[in-house]
């Protein structure tokens, strides 16, 4: 049984006239026309005495024979192409964190997350600049002594080791832009009277990062995270003896939560010191999925 294309081709061969010299032609581009030595290909290239008496222009972009700019310059993207859409994680060094703790800007007896860091008034996140959170960098890892319950948005391996060596706990967690807007200036957000949004799951290329136990991702398997802790301790040469006290460890944040102790959907009135919770089942359902 022949395929349709093959059938068609054979039928074509039956019907088409015999190949002759007049039937065939070269493949496009294999033959270029011979240039004659006058006119456009002559000595003055079409700009001689008699041609100059007439009004005529060269091809578009012609620069009297020198290579035109549209051929000289390459089609390159601008240096910062896509900068408006790139996700930024401005760095927060361990040195800065230690300094903030030593100068009582941060309280080590409470969990440190984006809201706490931005609440110090020393660390800033600008959601309009596509800043999605803090990137804990290892600058100052040798000096870092604090025992913290830390939640950042990105962390490199040495920063994780520095925190865990001192007996602390570190988690990397994703905040979508509206969650960043809420957490980066918590009081401003709460004053606006909006219900607390639920945090969205990380988009495709970030999901891999937050599911990886080596990054202490918030969506990683806790058992694998413990194993990775041991691996890291063996790599950097410390033993995990010190642990956070249970009170600090009891502070747990669900992947949909932005603030500790506050659920998505609640409206917090700071002035009245009340919380308004949704009653309708369909509204509740949105915030609990």
């Amino acid at each position, binding site marked *: 049984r022949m395929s349709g294309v093959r059938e068609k081709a054979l039928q074509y061969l039956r019907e088409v006239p015999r190949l002759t010299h007049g039937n065939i032609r070269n493949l496009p581009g294999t033959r270029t026309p011979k240039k004659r030595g006058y006119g456009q290909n002559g000595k003055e290239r079409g700009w001689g005495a008699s041609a100059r008496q007439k009004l005529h222009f060269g091809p578009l972009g012609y620069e009297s024979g020198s290579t035109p700019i549209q051929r000289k310059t390459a089609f390159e993207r601008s240096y910062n192409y896509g900068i408006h859409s790139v996700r930024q994680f401005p760095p927060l060094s361990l040195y800065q964190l230690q300094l903030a703790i030593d100068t009582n800007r941060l309280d080590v007896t409470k969990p440190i997350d984006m809201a706490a860091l931005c*609440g*110090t008034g020393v660390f800033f996140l600008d959601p309009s600049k596509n800043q999605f959170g803090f990137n804990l960098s290892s600058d100052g890892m040798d000096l870092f002594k604090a025992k913290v319950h830390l939640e950042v948005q990105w962390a490199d391996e040495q920063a994780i080791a520095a925190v865990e060596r001192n007996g602390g706990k570190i988690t990397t967690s994703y905040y979508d832009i509206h969650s960043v807007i809420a957490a980066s200036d918590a009081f401003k957000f709460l004053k606006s009277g909006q219900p607390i949004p639920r945090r969205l799951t990380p988009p495709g290329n970030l999901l891999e990062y937050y599911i990886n136990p080596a990054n202490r991702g918030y969506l990683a398997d806790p058992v694998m995270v413990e194993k990775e802790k041991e691996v890291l301790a*063996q790599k950097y*040469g410390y033993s995990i003896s010190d642990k956070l006290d249970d009170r600090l460890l009891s502070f747990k944040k669900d992947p949909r939560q932005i603030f500790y102790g506050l659920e998505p959907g609640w409206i917090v009135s700071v002035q009245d010191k009340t919380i308004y919770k949704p009653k309708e089942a369909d509204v509740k359902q949105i915030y609990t999925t």
Partner: protein
Amino acid sequence: MLIRGIRCLQLTEQCSRNYLTLTRFSSAYKSPLSLDKLYPASSGNAKPGTKDVSSEFSGQIPMNELTKTYSCSSGPGGQNVNKVATKVDLRFHVESASWLSPGVKAKVLEKYGSELTKDGWMVVKSDRTRSQTLNQADALEKLRTAIRSALAAPKPKFSAEEEERIRKGKLKAARERLHYKRIRSDVKAQRSGRDQML
């Protein structure tokens, strides 16, 4: 205009006060993404690492068994290199090391016996980077590489194919040598003029 520092302190006080009160309202919110729903099988207790087999080294070293010393590194660097203790010195007594299984220990002593100190301590140092943490990691890596190289089987100088080629090459060389030797002896024999018909 409030001075920024004081405003910050005020904010943090307010923050901390409100945080405390708010956490009293925490109701253990659990969405479908909470970890116990994503990983129901994980009870939170990781399995302990398996013990080393007699002739193998898994790479695991108990950190309290190593004696770590930190000192200042050498080289250029001004005030920083003079003050910051970035050099790492790791030592352990090989004979009494309980974390090395007997088979591994024997091989380590065999290979590095002459490199131990007089009292039998193995010393690994590193001042490769500007950071103590990274130097410690480097020193541990050196130690693990040393132990693994002691355990590795000695590599033969030539592979099996190379050995076969060498053997054939030797035979060929002998054949050629004898071939030319016979030609020369024929030449010499013809020159001697012996057994010629007169």
